[in-house]
């Protein structure tokens, strides 16, 4: 494998679309003008379970500007019985208006389309829908484990090795603790939005999503169209975090554009996103660790339960987090689901790893305390040589290097391990650490690179830049492979007509696209004769990485990291303030240090937010989320976020042509545990339920 030679990769580069973003010129999905545009407004159910008996469309159709009302009685048919590009069927709430069943509060029951958004909104809010209501059940708790069942997701549900009871009996120390995490919502800053129209016999959709190849494929399947007859564009995307796939808004826009034969835009409101855009399921987890007196693990048992809807199975594989982390004679992990009358959860930044690492890395901190071993030393003692469950070799594993570098920079050596002994005025101070890991995956992609007659190069790759800096990273990768300066490279992304490519998800985007771009660019460079004229149409080389990726040997491929946090806790008010965080990562080759640092810190901010703020509470009476908006659902704001540093150790992936592993998710993993462990160190109280709210700190008391 060759690595790039010109040094663009690895050097800080401001975003190539940066000027457009700071001047407001960058247009997001709802901002592309269309002549004759109509506006759709979704109507969501006000009951949590039952049937739609009737939709009183007459009164609403007479309102000014109203063009149509789509509902289960008149909507075009769609086919949702397919497995899409990512190996899963679509969320049933996106297969709009195909039957009269209501599966959860906020189930889409109608789409009102009008000339203006004001007219559509008023008509949607005036639409009377009659329901036959049935009793609903949204009460998730650990107590429901017996009703649940294991489910394989992107990881197997269950992995078992060794005799649990026997090894527990042989353990000198046993930690047995239960943990919970609440419903969490992605809340990308840009709400889901799509405009659909028929143009020259093709369906043309301008959307905000994490992969237009993926979304175009789903729409072709849903509407039984030739894939070549669907084009989806998504140039600038205001965040995704796992929520931006096929959802009700695109399907509604396509239906209305088909019925009305004019362009229709559907934008979710922030409140609708709490019913229609997916979320991270609450989890109830139990971790049992058995160890020798010196902290060497004999038992690692991790069981997790999450909720899903009655219409779709989704597992949050929280228990799988430990399978690649720590060796133990008996290693038992299982992720289960229980079905309730709730919306279907989905992938959200580090699905499985984020809540799973909170439980597992908190339990390890408890074990360190019980054994009287430093938490970092405990992890060193349990470092495996090969995959603890799989037995496969690691691609590269530099976890301990992260801890050593982090400990040095954080000042860990001076830490007094005793909890509850540091005071500064009204504050109790503490520090904590935790490990992070996330799979380093890759998906097949195609790319084309063209040498233009004017001496520039055009890269065509259907990547999605949802804030990751992918457009810029790919510019650097292409420049190095072509051996030209970055300003001669133009990268076009976000258009399904560019050809199939991986999505921005699972931390695989930049790695998958870079592989394809580098392959095409190198092929082009080899084929160009120095000094020869380039024809007006340019010279193009193409790549498809499917075969090379299929030939990758099976290994434990992961990014790793060490998280550190310092907190201050006011025992009189229960307030927890994070004072500083440091994350050191071994996450493959870092393409653009400027944007990579920002993204890793962003993940750590998510971890802080998960530890202290984020919680959607489901009302058992209505079945919906209380305060389903950004005032009721707290995400970390400026004043919550201290100076946070992220850095990395050298860790190029030996089997990736550019050396990339992916960095989108590793930043959140372990971060909440580091904060919770620091709160214990400050107060002497373990917090096993997130978020660590002031009332929980007060109720738990402490050494104050």
């Amino acid at each position: 494998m060759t690595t790039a030679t010109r040094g663009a990769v690895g050097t800080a580069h401001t975003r190539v679309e940066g000027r457009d973003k700071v001047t407001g010129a960058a247009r997001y999905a709802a901002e592309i003008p269309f002549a004759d545009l109509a506006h759709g407004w979704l109507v969501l159910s006000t009951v949590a379970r039952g049937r739609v008996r009737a939709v009183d469309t007459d009164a609403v159709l007479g309102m000014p500007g109203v063009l149509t009302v789509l509902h289960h009685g008149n909507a075009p048919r769609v086919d949702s019985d397919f497995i899409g590009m990512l190996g899963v069927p679509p969320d049933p709430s996106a297969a709009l208006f195909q039957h009269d069943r209501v599966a959860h509060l906020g189930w889409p029951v109608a789409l009102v389309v009008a000339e203006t958004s004001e007219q559509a909104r008023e008509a949607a809010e005036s639409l009377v829908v009659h329901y036959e209501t049935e009793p609903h059940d949204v009460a998730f708790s650990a107590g429901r484990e017996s009703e649940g069942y294991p489910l394989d997701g992107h990881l197997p549900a269950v992995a078992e090795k060794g005799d649990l009871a026997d090894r527990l009996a042989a353990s000198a120390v046993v930690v047995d603790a239960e943990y919970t995490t609440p419903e969490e919502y992605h809340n990308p800053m840009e709400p889901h939005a799509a405009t659909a129209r028929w143009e020259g016999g093709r369906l043309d959709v301008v959307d905000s999503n994490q992969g237009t190849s993926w979304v175009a494929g789903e729409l072709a399947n849903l509407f039984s169209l030739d894939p070549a007859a669907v084009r989806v564009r998504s140039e600038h995307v205001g965040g995704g975090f796992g929520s931006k796939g096929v959802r009700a808004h695109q399907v509604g826009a396509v239906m209305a554009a088909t019925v009305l034969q004019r362009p229709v835009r559907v934008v979710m409101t922030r409140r609708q996103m709490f019913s229609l855009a997916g979320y991270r399921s609450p989890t109830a987890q139990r971790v049992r660790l058995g160890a020798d007196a010196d902290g060497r693990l004999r038992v690692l048992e991790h069981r997790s339960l999450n909720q899903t809807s009655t219409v779709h199975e989704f597992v949050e594989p929280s228990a799988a987090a430990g399978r690649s982390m720590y060796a133990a004679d008996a290693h038992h992990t299982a992720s289960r689901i229980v079905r309730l009358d709730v919306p279907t959860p989905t992938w959200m930044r580090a699905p499985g790893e984020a809540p799973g690492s909170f439980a597992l890395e908190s339990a390890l901190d408890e074990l360190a305390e019980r054994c009287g071993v430093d938490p970092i030393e405990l992890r060193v003692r349990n470092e495996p040589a090969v995959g603890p469950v799989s037995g496969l070799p690691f691609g590269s594993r530099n976890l301990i290097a992260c801890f050593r570098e982090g400990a040095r920079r954080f000042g860990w050596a001076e830490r007094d391990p005793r909890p509850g002994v540091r005071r500064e005025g009204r504050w109790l101070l503490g520090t904590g650490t935790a490990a992070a890991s996330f799979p380093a995956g890759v998906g097949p992609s195609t790319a084309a690179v063209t040498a233009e007659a004017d001496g520039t190069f055009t890269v065509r790759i259907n990547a999605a830049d949802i804030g990751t800096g992918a457009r810029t990273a790919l510019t650097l990768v292409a420049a190095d492979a072509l051996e030209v300066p970055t300003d001669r490279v133009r990268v076009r992304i976000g258009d399904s007509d560019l050809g199939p490519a991986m999505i921005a998800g699972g931390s695989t985007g930049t790695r998958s696209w870079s592989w394809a771009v580098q392959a095409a660019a190198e092929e082009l460079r080899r084929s160009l004769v120095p000094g020869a004229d380039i024809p007006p149409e340019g010279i193009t080389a193409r790549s498809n990485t499917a075969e090379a990726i299929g030939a990758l040997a099976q290994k434990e491929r992961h990014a790793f990291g060490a998280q550190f946090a310092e907190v201050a806790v006011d025992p009189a008010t229960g307030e927890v303030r994070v004072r500083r965080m440091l994350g050191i990562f071994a996450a493959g080759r870092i393409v653009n240090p400027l944007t990579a640092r920002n993204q890793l810190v962003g993940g750590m901010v998510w971890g802080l937010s998960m530890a202290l703020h984020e919680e959607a509470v489901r009302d058992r009476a209505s079945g919906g989320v209380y305060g389903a908006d950004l005032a009721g659902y707290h995400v970390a704001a400026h004043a919550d976020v201290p100076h946070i540093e992220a850095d990395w150790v050298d860790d190029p992936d030996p089997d990736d042509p550019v050396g990339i592993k992916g960095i989108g998710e590793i930043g959140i993993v372990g971060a909440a545990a580091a904060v919770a462990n620091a709160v214990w160190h400050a107060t002497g109280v373990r917090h096993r339920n997130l978020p660590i709210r002031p009332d929980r700190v007060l109720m738990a008391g402490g050494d104050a």
Partner: protein
Amino acid sequence: MPPSTSSDLTLSVNGEKYTLTVDHRTTLLDALRERLDLTGTKKGCDQGQCGACTVLVDGRRSVACLQLAVAAEGREITTIEGVAEGERLHPVQQAFLDLDGYQCGYCTPGQICSAIAVIEEHAAGWPSAATADVRPEAGPPPLTPEEIRERMSGNLCRCGAYVSIVQAVARAAEEAVA
């Protein structure tokens, strides 16, 4: 005759006058985005909770989703499209670009408009909840990271680019006094 549900009005945006007929229900935010094609101002929540729609109204920062277009007549409105001087970026814009004060960019116009006003509010001596000494004679407090964070807290960034946003605001503020 049914009561009229729309009005003719003139909006003054970025120094230009726009005459249009608006539905009375139209917010200033929707008027900018849907009617004037000034889509730089973003809609993150449409209910005053995120700051993505922050614009300057008569020089003061204000969320455009919580005011009606008809109430904005006679005010001088500045949006993200109006803060640069021609090709020369405003120092706050330049600092966001150089220091990577964003990721997806969707909160960015609101953050930048807010930051421009924060620097002016601070220079004019306005205290914040993070200000230790709020007596008028104490003068403007140092614009520390804590001050910037407190004053910028109405602008959410879900990408979590807060650390580099604060650095960008601090740099632009330093340039403003230099």
